Structure formats: C-alpha cells, structure tokens
C-alpha cells in the first residue's frame, strides 16, 4: 500500500529486523494515519480498513477531511488536534512532506505518547529519520504496516508473495 510507487533507490538499502517489526505490530494499539483518504479505492483507505480489521484503532489525519468520518473514525487536520493518545504515526504522504510531519510528531510525542513513526512504502526521508531517532522514536521507512502485518502473521504468503520467512515451528492460532 503506497502513496506513490517507489523508484529503484540508490540510497543505502533499508533493512529492519523481523523481530522489531513484529514487536511494533504487537505493541501498537492506536495509529494516527496522516494522509488517510476517504476514497475507498485509495491505498491509504485499503490499509486503514485492513488494520482496523486486525484490531487497531486508526485515527485519520487529513486537513481536507477535517470533521468528517472515514471508516467510522473522526478525521483531524493535524496530529496535535487528535484528542486521544496514539502509539504510532503512519505517514501516507510524499517523501518531501514527511519531514514536517516527523517534526510535528516529535513536538507532540510526549503529550500523545507516540513511540513509533512509520513511513509508508515509497516514503523515505533519511534526515527526518535522524531527527526522529534522536527524539527517541522508533522509525520505519519505505514499508507498509498492512503488508508487514500480512507477511509476519501468515496472510501475505496466501497470495504467492515471498515473505522471506523460514520456520519448522507450528504456527499458533491466538485469540485477539
């Protein structure tokens, strides 16, 4: 799920340990999704609906939709306006817009209890990532939480996608 296709990058390749992604996806309960679209065929709307289905609360952030509901959740103009606390910011905007959103997240991190800032597939801003890490926020770039959830919890491979996972262990089905 990406706001724009990622061009083949000549930058340092990103690699995140599966254990880190798994921990984030297990511990995070509430996600502020910046750039969430009300249009149901947009990738952000797909990702929001999927994550809701997996038990996350997703709060849409989109100035154009301020005061309207998307998938049953009130939309806010920016992170500071969200009245509740949230664990993660999911950035569904172009890479060059991610810096300002990262700074906004840093500014309200303590007040909102933000632990993770996650930039979507195709979104990468190394300077912003540096500032986020300095502020103590876990930062993920150029990945989709929907795809990573599907990959790490067994659903993505149903569509013939290479998950990169090898295990002889019997998966367990757990109540949510």
């Amino acid at each position, binding site marked *: 799920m990406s706001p724009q296709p990622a061009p083949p990058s000549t930058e340092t390749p990103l*690699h995140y340990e599966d254990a880190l992604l798994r921990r984030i996806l297990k511990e995070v309960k509430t996600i502020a999704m910046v750039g969430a679209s009300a249009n149901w065929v947009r990738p952000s709307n797909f990702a929001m609906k999927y994550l809701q289905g997996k038990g996350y*609360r997703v709060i849409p952030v989109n100035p154009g939709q301020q005061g309207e509901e998307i998938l049953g959740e009130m939309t806010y103009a920016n992170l500071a306006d969200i009245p509740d606390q949230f664990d993660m910011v999911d950035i569904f905007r172009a890479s060059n817009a991610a810096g300002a959103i990262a700074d906004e997240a840093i500014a309200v991190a303590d007040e909102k209890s933000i632990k993770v800032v996650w930039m979507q597939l195709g979104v990468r801003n190394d300077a912003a990532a540096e500032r986020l890490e300095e502020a103590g926020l876990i930062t*993920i770039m150029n990945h989709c939480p929907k795809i990573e959830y599907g990959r790490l919890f067994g659903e993505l491979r149903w*569509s013939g996608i290479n998950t990169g996972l090898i295990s002889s262990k019997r*998966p367990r089905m757990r109540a949510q």
Partner: protein
Amino acid sequence: MERYQHRSYFIETPENESPMSKKPNQSGDMTAEPAPYGIETLAIHAGAQPEPVTGARNTPIFQTTSYVFEDAEHAADLFNLQTFGFIYSRLTNPTVAVLEERVATLEGGRAAVCAASGHAAQFLAFFTLLEPGDEFLSSINLYGGSITQFGHSFKRLGWNCHFVDPSDPENFRKALTPKCKAIFIEVLANPGGVVLDLEAIVAIAKDASIPLIVDNTIATPYLCRPMDWGADLIVHSTTKFLSGHGTSMGGALIESGKFDWAKDGKFPTMTEPDPAYHGLTFYETFGDFGFTMKARTVALRDFGPSMSPTNAFYTLTGIETLPLRMDRHVANAVKVAEFLDGHAAVKWVSYAGLKSSPYHQLAEKYLPRGAGSVFTFGLKGGYEAGIKLVESVNLFSHLANVGDTRSLILHPASTTHRQLTDDQREAAGAGPDVIRLSIGLETVDDLLADLDQGMSQAGKK
C-alpha cells in the same frame, strides 16, 4: 460506517522463526541484508510451514474449490482486494500458494503466480503487460510451442512479436520499436546447446525501460538465477525439471519487484485505474508485487488457467530434490555429450557444456553448475538415420517433453517445431537432422549403450 473487526484470532509463529538468516542481526535498521539460506534448504522449506490447525508437517493438498467467508464484510473485503485471503481456487489455493512462494524464493523474486502450464504462465505475463497493438521482441532460440504462441495466437489478440537472432545481443537494440513493451528470451535455450548473453540483453532492456522476461525452464534456478543478472520477470514450465518426474503440468510467472512500472507511462495496465477492478491502481496499491497481483486477479481470474492443487503438491515434492537431481542430470548429460562427440556416426553435438561449444564461455558465466541436460545432435546419416534412431532406442523414451527422471529423445522437426517454416526451424536450431535429448537420471553407462545400439541400428541400410 461502523468500525468492524472480522477476525477473532491471529496466526503467530513462535519467536525463533528466522528471516532467511542464519545469523540474526540485532542492530535494527540501516544494516546489510542478512546472509541467505542455501538453495538446498530453500528448495525444501521456502513457502511451507506446518499447518496451524492440525500440525501436518508436509503441505496438505487443499482439494477444495472455495472457502467460507467469516461474514459479509469479510467477503466484500476479499472481493475488493482489501484483505488477504482465499475466495475461490481459480485465484488462490493454499497448496498452490506454497509452490508460488517457493518458486519466487528460489528465483530470488518478490512474488509468483502459478498457472496450468508454462504456456498459460506466458499468457498471464503478456496479458498483464500488453494492450492490443503493442509489440515485443523475442529471441528466435525458443521452445517451438512458444514461437507458435507468439507468432500466431498472440497476433490474433493484437500482440505483435518480432523474432530476433540473439547471437549478437545488439540485434535486440536494432529491432526495438516505440511500441515494444518487453524482451523475451530463454538464457539456456530449447531445443539445446545455445546460451544467450544475459547481461548484455538486460542492459538493452534497461536502456529501453522495458522488462526482460526469461523463460528459465531448461536451466532451473539451481543452474541459473536470471534475476541476479537483472531480469525483471521469469516464466517457467514447472512441468519440466521443477516437478521433475513427468507427472504434473504447471507453469509459474515470477516478478522481481524491482521494475519501475511508472517510469515513463509505458504500462498503463499497471499505473492507470483498472476498470476491471473498480478503479484500483495496481502498482500504487501493491507496489513491488503489483504485477503479480494484477496477473492473478485480472488475467488468471478472467481467463482461468489455474494450477490444480494436486499438481502443485507433486511439483512441491519434486522441487525438494531439485538440487540433487540437477547435479545428476548435468553429470549424465556431460558424459552422454562427450560420448556422442567422439562417436563415428555423429556429425555434430550442440551442448554448451562441451569445451568445443561456441557457447562454452557463456555457459561458464551464467550456468556455473552446468549447462543443463537438454541438448541436440545430428547424425551423419541425416534425417532418415535420425528417425531410425528415435525408433530404435530402448531406454530413451520417444516423446515430447523434457526434464523427466527418464531420458527422452525427440526429432523436433517432426514434432515440437513442426508448425514452423523450414527457415524458422533452422533458425531455432531444429533443422531436419536434429535429434533432441533430455538426459535423465538412469545409470549413465546404460544410456550410452542404448544410444550406441540405436545408432548402429540406424546405420544399417
């Protein structure tokens, strides 16, 4: 709209599952890729995990057409592609999915979709790439069935193939037209002996911003991994060495995940809203596996050449021994080729594993583990002697297949390449005196003795 939650459970793998890495890297982000597992390990384990409900260790044959939805919302989400899951086995099946992930992994790709045959996989690839009126280039050194598919049946769909002599890779550059959307090759070509300069052809495709499609059937990912050299898509007839035992029809289309479909607007099927899917834009929505999603959810959905779960199961079982079998296929083929090369009745042998082959250097570069086990030779007695040999052998089976445990023999001009013109047959390496062999896993001395007695029969007036 109400918030909803359709799953009451999630599937969790115990923590020591490893991301294809023998040495877990603890440091978090911005690190190098972990060391991968070896191909023998991946051939057995990739894609497959014990089944969560029963603990079944081997992949079960999910012999079912359809899957129960959890509720109406879940059904709608599945049909909209908003969630991952099973609807109907024409699109996805749990047994077939294990094979898809395994083949994608072995080729170093991002995703794969399986099909009823290699031909069906080629159809899925081109239907996903082309609009009517589009063109593509193909090497002339191909399986004869592919030449016919591209040259005749595809033409009726408005897809125009230009065949190119690949002996000079620059011939592809010269043949490019503004409407060309892909280059198609077999690196190790059927009916045999020819190896293409993959790296040079990759560079030409990259300059033209079009994908290079490689049919890797004859080499298999054990002998050659075209994506390591920059190929964008791979097709397979899994019927051959992957399944390996002559039991099961099948095909696969694999995507590297590295091609930029949006670069210059050449691929509207990937980058424009799709009317066949309520305006979904596949590349934007699914990123580096968007091509596979489109091939599956549009081409496979609407034309229906799906692989059966039973064939997927046989193919998975075959792949588990692929590295062992290929080593033996190659060892036997080298001995048979050397034997024929020194035989008085033989005019020529075309096997890239022979030092005398003009393709030997290319084979050493692209096929370091061996030049496969499918190759051709010609008898001094020409067409007549060839026909007699095919009818005189006792262990070699006279049939139209390759990549079986059994050794196979064929006269391409009268069978697989029969629909071609004389010129096309010559160009494809299937002239009137050509005999094609697919060397199996029998005791190699028995194969030599069988060919020897066959050739002496063929030499009698």
